[in-house]
């Protein structure tokens, strides 16, 4: 062997558009959207890989990949710049029989089978690049091996009223899945798939090849591969996860996930309530930029917020998350909002229940106000010179 053999490697699906994030993903793939002050969404998945000692990570990109590719680079930030292994960016490509865009999540893996084979893995970990959570995949891997499973799907309990947004699993006592319903109208329970799978690679290969020939398939794990494997009676298990997990698929859930970081009243015994970014033993890595520390000026008033290097605050910031290099002017008010990098909130402006995208300016005295459930969004690089008040 040439040092490339691995027991398990990870493939991160990062090609989706995330169109429900509207302005946030206009020029940017969803995994590259800024989150939580200094991070981008994909940092959580990549850091989980690093913290779980998984050192071969393929990242499948397709929609607006430029920022994402720049961000990942050669993987240095996550210690994934290895001489053997590390991070590999895998965009769609052509070959001697033409070539295709990635048609679905399963097709994306199918088109990169040769890449996976380089490492001759026994197991394949399939991840999404657009979820916010911290998880040690080794625990799930151990579970997978103990259960002698063919497939293990990580799952989490969601509020029953939201269950129809997810793939819902019905399991018996030993966590074996006997039924899987993709986005059911009338969910039988609240055990949702987190879109994290461990497959036995040899098994999966067989199903991927069959699926590729199936013209009627959407080539999607949730819609096609998982139901097909279940039908065939493969050993499928649900791995119960009890931490914080959020699929930031919509503007509202993206805003909420940012707000969750500011929660000060989480019970100690509710790990799902709050994402801990402050664990020195489990850092979230990102490629950082050289900015000076944040300056909180005389007369500023900052409370219940998260702020990053490069910011200058002269006004009031309450219950908000600020990214790099944000300026908040005198008497400006920023409340319940997410402010992305390099943006200006000029003097006397008011920003409430809003997301200000990167490089935008809210000019002097302007009001940008949304409300929970209807968050106001100022697009990237826009000069907001008039009020935007959502009723």
């Amino acid at each position: 062997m040439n040092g490339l053999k691995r027991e398990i490697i990870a493939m991160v699906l990062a090609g989706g558009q995330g169109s429900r994030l509207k302005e946030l993903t206009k020029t940017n793939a969803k995994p590259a959207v800024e989150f939580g002050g200094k991070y981008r969404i994909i940092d959580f998945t990549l850091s989980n890989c690093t913290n779980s000692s998984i050192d071969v990570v393929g990242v499948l990109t397709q929609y607006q990949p430029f920022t994402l590719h720049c961000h990942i680079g050669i993987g240095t930030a996550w210690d994934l710049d290895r001489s053997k292994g590390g991070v590999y960016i895998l965009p769609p490509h052509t070959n001697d029989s033409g070539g295709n865009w990635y048609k679905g999540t399963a097709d994306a893996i199918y088109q990169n089978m040769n890449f996976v084979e380089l490492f001759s893995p026994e197991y394949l970990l399939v991840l999404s690049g657009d979820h916010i959570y911290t998880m040690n995949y080794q625990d799930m891997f151990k579970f997978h091996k103990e259960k002698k499973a063919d497939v293990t799907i990580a799952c989490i309990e969601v509020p029953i009223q939201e269950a129809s947004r997810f793939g819902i699993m019905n399991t018996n006592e030993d966590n074996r899945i006997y039924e899987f319903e993709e986005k059911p109208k009338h969910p039988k329970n609240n055990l949702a798939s987190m879109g994290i799978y461990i497959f036995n690679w040899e098994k999966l290969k067989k199903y991927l090849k069959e699926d590729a020939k199936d013209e009627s398939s959407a080539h999607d794990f949730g819609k096609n591969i998982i139901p097909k494997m279940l039908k065939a009676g493969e050993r499928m298990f649900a791995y119960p996860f009890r931490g914080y997990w959020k699929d930031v698929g919509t503007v509202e859930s993206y805003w909420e996930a940012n707000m969750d970081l500011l929660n000060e009243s989480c019970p100690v015994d509710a790990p799902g309530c709050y994402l801990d970014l402050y664990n020195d033993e489990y850092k979230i890595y990102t490629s950082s930029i050289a900015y000076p520390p944040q300056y909180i000026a005389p007369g500023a008033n900052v409370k219940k917020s998260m702020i990053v290097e490069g910011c200058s605050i002269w006004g009031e910031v309450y219950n908000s998350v600020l990214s790099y290099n944000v300026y908040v002017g005198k008497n400006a008010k920023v409340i319940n909002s997410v402010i992305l990098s390099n943006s200006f909130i000029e003097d006397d402006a008011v920003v409430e229940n809003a997301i200000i995208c990167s490089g935008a300016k809210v000019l002097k005295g302007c009001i940008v106000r949304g409300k929970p459930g209807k968050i106001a969004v100022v697009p990237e690089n826009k000069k907001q010179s008039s009020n935007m008040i959502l009723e």
Partner: protein
Amino acid sequence: MLTNYLGIVSLTENDSKLKSLTATRPLASIPIFGRYRVIDFTLSNLVNAGVTNVGILAPAKSRSLIDHVGTGKPWDLNRKVDGLYIFNYSYEPPSISDIKLLKSNMEFLLRSKKEMVIFTQSHMICNIDFEEVARCHEESNADITVVYKKVNNEDDLFLDAPTLILDEDSKVIGVGKNIGRRAFVNVSLDMFLLSKEFLIECILGCLENGNCGSFRDFVYKNVQNMNVNAYEFKGYVGCINSISSYFKVSMDMLNVDIQQELFSKERPVYTKSNDSPPTRYFSTCEVENSFISNGCLIEGKVKNSIISRGVVIEKDAVVENSIIFSKCVIKNGAVLKNVILDKNVVIDSNATLIGHNKNPLVMEKQSEVCLNLLKEVKRL
């Protein structure tokens, strides 16, 4: 872009007045302005001018310096061609001069293809455009160009620094010492531009004549025998040579104009990053006029202070006019005024520490690892 220059950073600096801040580290790696170390400014000035080849003459106690600088990656100095070299004193007596150190590493100078040298130190903190200095030096046809600044002696910041006596063509005709008697003096920033050839000549001449102090002393002693040109730097300079100057320069960062000049958008300051999360300000905190790094958890009151990474300030604690290094914990109800806390210091709840605003109280660095290990041992 100064593609024909190499940088030499000589760290044989006098740190005798910095007390415990330099007990375990050289002056160059004293933490400053929250996330930086003193040497970051010199290195950034060099690389922002396009210098890609830098030799650091490191003093004893360099562990933290080498840990910080590493391969030079934050400054883009991790290169196959040229890049960063660290020469240290492992085989030499600690009192050795930088001249001897350069002599024993002559290969570095001879092997480099660069023909010109910027010879500098780390304790003068500024954001200087070396390209402009190089232009001035090359036009002057002088042997050496020294950078100086006209300073006002009001606050004794540049005491003991060498001062330049200039003729009307701004040629250096003598060098004295700033004893603080005159209102305005031309303080040398200990930055020299010269050709590599001339530097080698100086080193060899020095050794032959047994006149072997540091390179800067050699230049200052011999200004009459060489053609020494002076370049006036008009920007901000913070001179780190004592506890009180360190304190004053740190607090200068709370002046927005100085802050914006030193951390200019055109010429950023690079440093080693350490993946700290954002800083959290809790509902109970009151923060005003402070410079705060990432990774802090603030529930108490912070005023006119500089806070490094990963500091915890608990509820009802008060931190005023103070400088807190990384990973310190200030427990609830503690009060700090005019204090410098070195790394990993834990202040018990309701403790009160008050220094003088010209002479702050300095708390020594604690070894985090040892403390934790001791706790483990006690538990067993």
